[in-house]
């Protein structure tokens, strides 16, 4: 497993306490899991995605990731509607381990832009991991 110094944590995205990331792309947002999350989970072997059009509240579970160690839920960083899912992950779940930031899980249209303010930036997230 990686030391904290070895983690890749880009500065241009938002993070959550549950180790998801959110990247604002105009009016929509792409969501994935952080390098720390994929490293802690180990080899991911199965990804369960929501259906396009589903609506989730901030903090609500939108899918599950199964690794060789455990099954983990992924939670919506913001409230909104799912407008796309990365179905490539269904056949190649390892992409989340290999490139956690270019391989997003879902794309949402947030219903409340103010919720971005409640997310963590890189430094806050790093501090949280350091505990």
């Amino acid at each position: 497993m990686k030391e904290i110094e070895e983690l890749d944590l880009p500065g241009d995205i938002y993070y959550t306490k549950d180790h998801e990331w959110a990247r604002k792309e105009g009016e929509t947002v792409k969501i994935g899991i952080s390098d720390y999350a994929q490293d802690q989970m180990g080899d991911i072997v199965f990804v369960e995605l929501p259906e396009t059009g589903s609506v989730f509240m901030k903090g609500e579970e939108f899918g599950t990731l199964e690794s060789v160690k455990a099954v983990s839920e992924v939670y919506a960083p913001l409230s909104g509607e799912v407008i796309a899912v990365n179905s490539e992950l269904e056949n190649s779940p390892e992409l989340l381990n290999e490139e956690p930031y270019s391989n997003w899980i879902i794309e949402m249209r947030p219903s409340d832009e103010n919720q971005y303010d409640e997310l963590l930036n890189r430094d806050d997230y790093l501090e949280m991991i350091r505990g």
Partner: protein
Amino acid sequence: MIQGPGTSGLILNEPLLWEKGKKGRSAFSMVEQDVPEAELAAGLAGGAPFFPDLGELDVVRHYTRLSQWNFGIDSGLYPLGSCTMKYNPKINEKMAATPGISSAHPMLEESLCQGVLQLLFELQDFLASITGMDAVSLQPAAGAQGEMTAMLMFAACFKKRGERRDKILIPDTAHGTNPASAALCGFSSVPLMSGADGVLSAASVAEKMDESTAGIMLTNPNTLGLFEENIRAITDIVHQKGGLVYGDGANMNAVMGMVDFKRCGVDAMHLNLHKTFSTPHGGGGPGAGPVCVVAELEPFLPVPRAVKKGQGYGLSFGSTDSIGRVHAFFGNFSVLVRAYSYIMSMGPANLKKASQLAVLNAVYVRERLRDTLALAYEKPSMHECVFSDKKQHKWKVTTLDMAKRLIDHGFHPPTIYFPLVVPGAIMIEPTETECKDDLDQFVVVFKDIVREAESDGERLRQAPTRTKVRRLDETRAARKPCLTG
């Protein structure tokens, strides 16, 4: 290298049965044909399945060799946490093989199977008195089915009361079967976080418990091996809101004869006979997961149950409130016989002592390994202890690597990566049936493995190296499973 029981002996290869044999071989003699041959009606005949022709010795060697690749409690220490892999005394097998018991047909008239009915009746009674509960069904075939049976009873009870409750509280240390059983009965699970000390606080339950919540599913001791000491306060809160309390009996081996679950406020619980009551476990199953309830829930129990009828015994088909059958006839009967044999041969005092020794053994391992591995919780633990691989991170050695290396030394690894609340968890449950010498050997080997983590980490990452097959690619097995022979 310090020597555990494991060595590298000669292991005999063995192909699949379908790759063995020769046309014409046979393991029995056909009786001579004494009726005229007749043509099979058209439409009944079809292609025959492919079965290999094998001699008796082919078959005997095949299964003997496969058994030699296996590892079981009869081969060595099997400290799989939360599984209670205790030794299964051979007297249980002898009793289950008694002809009057093993050949009793489940549809015999009551008058012709009084002994069997007496055994079922008394086992219900024993399990009620061991748990402190009022009534028992022996039908469920496994722990998870016991959980589901109890959840069906909770649902039936609320329906009878005319209440709508669609949620249930489940702590984050619970077995995954708990939320699954609840979901099958229409309850959505509300997760409860355990506190920093590894147990539930009454306040966290009070915060979530309301009139639309069916109750709580609680394992005590919990899967961290810690006693839920706030159980009385927690069950009071649940009852005040009209809810019911389910006790998961997975860890009963820590508290036989020590804890009265009814007085703790538990309304229904299951027992794993294949854990606590020494019946075969895992691949050697089948299991049994009897459900014990308080009097209020008795009308909802599955039927039939064994009852006293006059001077003898009979079956009761209960009230119309019963949830019905959850298994054909009486459950996995031959498993019930083994548990009965265990309880009868131990007696109340020794059952209690078994639990005390199970706790003592686990605490001994915990204290001897506490400087070697990172202890997850400082709180006094019961029949199992949970460590993590935190201290080994700096050498890039994980829980998985250490577990695999234990195999090289001839030990079955403990439970790893569970419970989920401890990252890199190593959960050790030695059970009461291991003697101090064997525990000492395990501890010495584990300490040696940790020294090796620092000096030769690669050796651990390659482990196991002395087994018939080397480390399996678990990731590939999960991503690209090959499910045919």
